[in-house]
């Protein structure tokens, strides 16, 4: 079996196994898995409205997935997407609320603010990794909590002690009458276009620029890259900054598109963590991220239909996602089994 085929088979098998485990858990806890997955399916594709909402849900997952994947390609593990997303969400909403400008300036400004905030949040672990060799995993986890508490405090300051900001001015909104009408008045917004454009941007950076080549080289082998005269430290920082910018944009999607405000949070949104799953499933390629985000965005949105339609807690989908990540991470054993199966087939012939 070719390497490429196993590369694609591992995620596919993982997804199937994840859904199977989900079915078993539903069965054991006294629910009907068929009914459950039917509710999930209808929650994703039921009608034009749900399809619109599903695509809306996919939007931030695309960007969060890109963020994780981009860092991965440079050999970095960015668990901080969650925090970068939160600061991006706040920055975009703040710019949307604080001033009113012509749309042509206001909207790009708000989006840019989110990207910059996320980039800044990615810069810290990048810098520490480059200068002090501090592992980025722990720093980004800590930065997540700092982002959560700081953004909550800022929201309280901005809203004079309230739990959420005002709605953003229409001039900063990503709202689209066209897309809404197309999907029976769902909250689908122009963010999806931005997200897909960023998929193209990531592909372009990685495949068509010197920077991308260097980033990938550093990801493969730092020492060799150093020896070849590349500035490894600069590349580590840049990779984290760009990754953070993608994550910040994911926050902008929530701030300017879906919610049009930012509220203080009792816990994490989970989008950043799911971004890890999206990237893993997509083999850290831009196109793969599109598939991963589509799957997870759909699962997440479709799950909302499960309590009503089948009486099953929505967490079942999160269990499925966790199991998928588990199996993707354990890809070695799946590869091994595939190889054995292939060898047996050869013998039989």
């Amino acid at each position, binding site marked *: 079996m070719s390497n490429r085929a196993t590369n694609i088979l591992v995620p596919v098998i993982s997804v199937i196994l994840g859904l199977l485990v989900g079915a078993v858990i539903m069965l054991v806890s006294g629910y009907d898995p068929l009914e459950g997955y039917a509710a999930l399916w209808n929650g994703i594709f039921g009608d034009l409205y749900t399809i619109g909402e599903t695509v809306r849900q996919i939007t931030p997952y695309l960007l969060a997935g890109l963020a994780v994947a981009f860092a991965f390609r440079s050999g970095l593990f960015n668990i901080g997407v969650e925090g970068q997303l939160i600061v991006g969400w706040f920055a975009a909403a703040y710019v949307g609320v604080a001033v009113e400008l012509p749309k042509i300036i206001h909207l790009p400004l708000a989006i840019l603010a989110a990207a910059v905030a996320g980039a800044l949040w990615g810069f810290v672990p990048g810098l520490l990794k480059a200068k*002090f060799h501090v592992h980025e995993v*722990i720093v980004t986890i800590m930065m997540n909590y700092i982002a959560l508490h700081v953004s909550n405090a800022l929201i309280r300051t901005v809203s004079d002690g309230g739990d959420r900001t005002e709605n953003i001015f229409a001039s900063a909104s990503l709202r689209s009458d066209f897309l809404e009408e197309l999907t029976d008045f769902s909250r689908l917004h122009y963010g999806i276009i931005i997200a897909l454009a960023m998929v193209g941007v990531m592909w372009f950076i990685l495949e068509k620029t010197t920077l991308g080549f260097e980033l990938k080289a550093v990801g493969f082998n730092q020492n060799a890259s150093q020896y070849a005269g590349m500035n490894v430290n600069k590349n580590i920082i840049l990779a984290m900054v760009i990754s953070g910018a993608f994550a910040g944009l994911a926050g902008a999607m929530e701030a300017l598109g879906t919610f049009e405000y930012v509220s203080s949070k009792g816990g994490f949104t989970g989008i950043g963590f799911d971004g890890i799953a999206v990237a893993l499933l997509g083999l850290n390629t831009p196109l793969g991220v599109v598939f991963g985000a589509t799957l997870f965005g759909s699962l997440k949105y479709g799950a909302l239909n499960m309590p009503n339609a089948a009486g099953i807690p929505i967490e079942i989908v999160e269990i499925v996602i966790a199991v998928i990540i588990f199996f993707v991470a*354990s890809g070695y054993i799946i590869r091994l089994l595939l190889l054995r199966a292939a060898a047996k087939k050869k013998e039989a012939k």
Partner: protein
Amino acid sequence: MSFLDVLYFIVPSAIFYAAPLILVAIGGVFSEKSGVVNIGLEGLMVIGAFVGILFNLLFADTFGGATPWLALVAAMLAALLLSLLHAVASISFRADQVVSGVAINLLAAALSIYLVKSIFGKGQTDFITERFSRYNVPFLSDIPVIGPLFFKSVYNTSFFAIAVAFVAWFVIYKTPFGLRLRAVGEHPMAADTMGINVTRMRYVAVMISGALAGVGGAIYSQTITNDFGHATINGQGFMALAAMIFGKWHPLGAMGAALFFGFAQSLSIVGSRIPYISEIPNVFLLILPYVLTIIALAGFIGRANAPLANGKPYIKGQR
């Protein structure tokens, strides 16, 4: 409020918040000393907290006052089982240990709330009725200064946590088992050559980390929140992970760091009633432990070296 009054107020509360962190951080020390990164501590703690509360609610009538302690045992077993998943993935299946840990965290959070909703029909459990009781240690609590600081209205669980830290230190640094554990984490190939079963050592270490994290989680839920919902263990496991690093992968260091984080946490909660501290915006106290961890990691508080083979699967025969 005099300085001593402030201390009387804050030290017991710091110890109270630190107890679960100590146990979980020590669990992390065991796992990472053997070379297995355990980001999943948060998830293991969540399962411990959930099973602790569940057991307590189900069996409070049967076991009465012993319920919380028995709940610790149940929580320990549940988290141990979950940690086996991490062990299988990261030791036998050669998974990326960080990714596997992330999966454990997601799984624990989702599974526990799924079960809460299935069993209780709502997102939050009821409050437990059988709790650990606070008490004054006889004689010791009468000692001036020391008594009110450490021995007045305390939980047994706090003493238990501190005792575990010393036992862990003894086990890791003074027993043959500990020597093997450290060898496996520093240089698995050398350890293997000496006839140590690397895989088995790592499995045992991860299971110990699961057991301790489970107990820590159950202590947290049964002393601090008294019920279980999605926000019960909000980052405590990561805080413990930070304490482990801050304490330089040493059990007593981890305990010290956990006590300090407990202090920081209690400051953000009781700080509003203490002069001067009440004037600091709460957010600074909330982010203090995380910022300190980053600073500590950056090497401003002396170099800390993780076990050499930490995070790398051991593949026999590979150099």
